[in-house]
């Protein structure tokens, strides 16, 4: 019938408009035309019936609001606003900081919500069992600030560290499986971090397109070198200067062929520079090892005999090395005479090697201490049996221990707890690193700026343009520092659940402090260029650090038995035995059987082999796709040379007019039908809307 036909045509027109609107964002139409399309749909969509997506939409709106709040737009806006003064490299640093903050927020919520809070609320309180109480000998100074700052005393015997946790299988009325939760949270934080880093890398890689790097050198220089984020005249002047310099460089490179006279001298100097750098790295590694050995000696002789420096020697040495060696590398790299971008990459690589070497030396030294503590365990176990015997000797000698003797938990002799020691070391390292960073910031940036500004009047040479002048914001150095701190968090989070919380606080303070320092004491960089074209360089570094920092934790979990007297895994022979225990007790029998079959080496090895083969296959197919891509590009170029390119404008004009025509036509027809029976129209509309809804589903 005519009515049905018209309504069908109406639905078609609305569908077409909807398809158009889905791509509306990408169309280069002025605002008014976009508004018209939306008005059209709005008018006629209602005629077809209201959609069912309302509730879902409201939920989505609420989630978006919550997410917006959670992203701390307030100070983020502040940072971005000020980083406009310096261009996008500084903005990229703050964006990276925000992203790290997001990851740490998730890690914090996991450790806080699933580990610290259940233990604090549902498990036995402080002072009820020996491992949760400060021993009698230490109680005198457990509240001293010096001891607390060192994370001893009450801080050590709290949910902040591994040693406090009880190994009771299920706690509270919820029957919360504490040891299982601890283990899974530890594994989960690592898994989550991997997932997030790899997902971000994949997203960045997709955006980059992975095309040729030098085929459009000049074109990119001319069209993409202006930084639209610049909002300050001084930065703009610098940017103009750097663009001009970059053009002149590129022109010179293009005009002359590279003549390498004295290629032998350059090569010799580069080899010499690398040799010097290797010496530095070896020296710093040895220094750390030596210092850790010394601290072990101090610990054996009792820390009270020594002053503040001896107690914090290791951390201070590591932080100072981290501060001065990069400057040394900078000086050595002047020998090499590389292009600045390549020199920066070498520099970053060397700093990376330095930090890595230091960290691993530190861990090896820690391993020695762990072994010492484990040797001590045997002695303590022996002593405890003697002590218990003595205790029962004093009262009725009962063979059955039906009547337990009330002993103050503070008096019970304690077994050594290597996990808490490891946790404490990492926390101390992070704190000293943070302090060093802040102090360098204050002295190196703020004090320097104050001195330059006020002494400039009464100094022989111009302090602002010569030495020392104001400091620049070192983006790559700061990003590296951020990455390495995160690595230390990942390493220590299993033994000190407080580390993500600490890191969150640190990042928060860092954001504000660095924002202020950038605004008040730094000047924009003279030469604005980045280490690489994409963010993936730093992401790749983060991934490597993630892998390398989870290795030691995994090694200790798998190969070292847990302490017998502290932590959620005490009493087990290996920490991962908690999984086995859960499978046996909490799951039905057939589940355990399936798992034991699945973990059979005969099954696991072929599976691993299959995965390796899959990786090889995917790699080779990706290579063929890249090759095919190149071929297609060439074909496209050849085609373009032959055919005439048709412009989009003609098509655009057409699509602008026809909806309007359609609109007037349908308007008229609809009025005619409306003039007829109203109830019949209402019924048909209902039918169509139902059909349409089912189409949606």
């Amino acid at each position, binding site marked *: 019938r005519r009515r049905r036909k018209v309504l069908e045509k109406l639905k078609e027109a609305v569908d077409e408009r909807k398809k158009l609107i889905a791509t509306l*964002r990408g169309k280069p139409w002025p605002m008014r035309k976009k508004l018209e399309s939306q008005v059209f749909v709005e008018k006629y969509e209602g005629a077809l019936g209201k959609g069912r*997506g309302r509730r879902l*939409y409201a939920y989505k709106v609420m989630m*978006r609001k919550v997410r917006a709040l959670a992203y701390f737009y307030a100070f983020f806006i502040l940072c971005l606003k000020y980083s406009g003064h310096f261009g996008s490299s500084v903005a990229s640093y703050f964006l990276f900081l925000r992203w790290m903050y997001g990851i740490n927020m998730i890690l914090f919520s996991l450790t806080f919500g699933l580990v610290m809070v259940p233990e604090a609320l549902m498990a036995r309180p402080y002072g009820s069992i020996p491992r949760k109480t400060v021993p009698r000998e230490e109680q005198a100074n457990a509240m001293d600030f010096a001891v607390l700052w060192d994370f001893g005393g009450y801080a050590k015997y709290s949910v902040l560290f591994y040693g406090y946790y009880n190994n009771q299988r299920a706690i509270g009325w919820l029957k919360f499986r504490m040891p299982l939760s601890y283990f899974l949270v530890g594994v989960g934080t690592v898994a989550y971090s991997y997932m997030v880093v790899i997902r971000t890398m994949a997203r960045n890689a997709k955006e980059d397109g992975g095309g040729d790097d030098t085929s459009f050198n000049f074109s990119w220089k001319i069209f993409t070198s202006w930084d*639209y*984020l*610049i909002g*300050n005249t001084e930065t703009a002047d610098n940017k103009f200067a750097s663009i001009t310099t970059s053009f002149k460089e590129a022109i010179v490179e293009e*005009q002359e062929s590279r003549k390498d006279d004295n290629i032998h001298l350059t090569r010799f100097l580069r080899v010499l520079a690398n040799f010097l750098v290797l010496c530095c790295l070896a020296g710093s590694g040895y220094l750390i090892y030596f210092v850790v050995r010394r601290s072990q000696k101090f610990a054996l002789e009792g820390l009270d005999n020594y002053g503040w420096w001896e107690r914090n020697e290791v951390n201070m040495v590591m932080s100072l090395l981290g501060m001065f060696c990069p400057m040394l590398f900078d000086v050595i790299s002047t020998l090499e005479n590389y292009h600045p971008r390549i020199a920066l990459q070498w520099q970053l690589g060397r700093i990376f090697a330095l930090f890595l070497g230091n960290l691993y030396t530190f861990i090896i030294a820690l391993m020695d201490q762990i072994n010492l503590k484990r040797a001590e365990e045997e002695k303590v176990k022996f002593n405890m049996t003697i002590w218990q015997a003595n205790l029962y000797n004093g009262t009725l000698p009962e063979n059955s221990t039906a009547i337990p003797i009330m002993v103050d938990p503070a008096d019970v002799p304690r077994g050594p707890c290597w996990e808490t020691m490891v946790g404490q070391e990492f926390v101390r390292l992070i704190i000293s690193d943070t302090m060093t960073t802040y102090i360098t910031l204050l002295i190196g940036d703020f004090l320097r700026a104050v001195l330059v500004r006020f002494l400039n009047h009464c100094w022989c040479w111009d302090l602002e343009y010569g030495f020392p002048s104001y400091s620049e914001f070192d983006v790559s150095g700061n990003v590296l520092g951020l990455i390495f701190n995160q690595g230390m968090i990942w390493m220590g989070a299993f033994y000190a659940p407080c580390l993500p919380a600490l890191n969150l606080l640190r990042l928060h303070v860092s954001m504000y402090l660095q924002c202020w320092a950038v605004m008040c004491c730094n000047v924009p960089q003279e030469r604005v260029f980045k280490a690489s074209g994409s963010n993936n360089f730093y992401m790749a570094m983060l991934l490597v650090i993630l892998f390398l920092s989870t290795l030691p934790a995994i090694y200790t979990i798998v190969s070292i038995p847990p302490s017998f007297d502290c932590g959620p895994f005490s009493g087990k022979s290996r920490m991962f035995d908690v999984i086995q225990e859960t499978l046996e007790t909490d799951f039905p029998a057939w589940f355990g059987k399936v798992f034991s079959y699945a973990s059979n080496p005969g099954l696991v090895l072929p599976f691993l082999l299959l995965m390796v083969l899959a990786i090889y296959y995917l790699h080779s197919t990706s290579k063929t796709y890249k090759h095919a891509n190149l071929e297609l590009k060439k074909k496209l170029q050849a085609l373009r*040379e032959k055919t005439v390119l048709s412009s989009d404008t003609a098509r655009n004009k057409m699509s602008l007019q026809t909806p309007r025509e359609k609109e007037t036509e349908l308007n008229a027809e609809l009025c005619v039908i409306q003039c007829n029976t109203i109830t019949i129209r209402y019924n048909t509309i209902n039918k169509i809307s139902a059909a349409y809804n089912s189409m949606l589903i």
Partner: protein
Amino acid sequence: MKNKHLQKISFIILKMFPNFKQQYFLSRLFHRYRDLAPQLVPLDYTNQPDVRLPYELIGSMPELKDNPFRQRIAEVFSEDGEGNMTLDDFLDMFSVLSEMAPRDLKAYYAFKIYDFNNDNFICKSDLEKTLNKLTRNELTEDEVRMVCEKVIDEADLDNDGRLSLEDFQHMIVRAPDFLREVCNFHHRFTSTMRGKMRKKIQEITL
């Protein structure tokens, strides 16, 4: 306080942007537009008054005042092609130049910005003007000529001695810095309209 702002916004715009974030930042943008010339721009846009702000005011905004292409940007987004912008043009400009605009849209507008003589092609004279604005006339004539020739060599696919939109898009989408640095403003919080079906259904009061 935000309710007061929202009440003053154009009725149509409010209907089109049910999203809270969009409404809030639209109101901010409207007030930035108004702050350029409070005596010219009325608070009530229900009757869609025809108000155009002259180019001098637009070009003095902090985001644009240091940009060498500010005149071209204003000309491209203005209706009359001379840089005098209505509120619609202003919103258009910010929405294209925000970080949420899609890459192809940015490429299209970048092409129009660099096309100084508005002939839908970037020819050699356009390139020379771009380069001179970028380096503030510090390169010699020879150097400018050499760079322009090199650019045409690299990017011109149909061999007509000038860059068409397709050539430009083909070259620009591969640039690593394009999305991040170029054509991005501080106001990352404006977003272009999302013409999603469900939002419209919700707003219909039939």
